[in-house]
């Protein structure tokens, strides 16, 4: 098992974890919408790169299926957050703390 792949996965997991910490700690909805995106972009890409590296080394040929998930995440995450942000804006009180 390659240590480089494991370290890439650990870095991605750290980003996803920090995104969740931000989701719990920040005060308003519009602030809270920001941290999880760190996990969806950099965190997911690092974990998927680590998985690609590991299986490419193990099977000794390039393995690229993870790129499919990465592309899918990059395309779909903005759609979800756009809809959520507009819903919060229309329903009001998005800047009130809690």
């Amino acid at each position, binding site marked *: *098992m*390659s*240590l480089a*792949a*494991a*370290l890439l*996965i*650990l870095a*991605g*997991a*750290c980003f*996803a*974890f920090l*995104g*969740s*910490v931000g*989701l*719990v700690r920040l005060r308003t*909805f519009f602030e*809270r*919408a920001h941290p*999880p995106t760190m*996990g*969806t972009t950099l*965190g*997911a890409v690092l*974990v*998927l790169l*680590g*998985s690609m590296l*590991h*299986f490419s080394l*193990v099977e000794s040929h390039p*393995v690229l*299926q*993870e790129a*499919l*998930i990465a592309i*899918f*995440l990059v395309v*779909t*995450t903005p*759609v*979800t957050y756009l*809809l*959520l942000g*507009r*819903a*919060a804006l*229309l*329903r009001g*009180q*998005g800047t009130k703390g*809690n």
Partner: protein
Amino acid sequence: MNADLASAVLGLAQLLLALGMALALVRLLRGPRAEDRVLALDTLYLNAMLLVITSGVVIGSRVMIEVALVIGLLGFVSSAAAAKFLLRGEVIE
């Protein structure tokens, strides 16, 4: 020795992702607004997907990639549907 270290690092990554899921669950239960719950559900799905991929690397199985793809698809569809419902009051108009 190197393989042991890599296993320990992957175990730490799994632990971090599970903790991230627990934190997202905290936000899911606390709310306070419906948008916060949908956002927390989205984060929960993402962390679960990354945990599945990491577990696939740990047990050395390629099947986990398909599992992660299905989780990602369902997560996007459910959060987008919930957000659309909050926005307009119905999912498909």
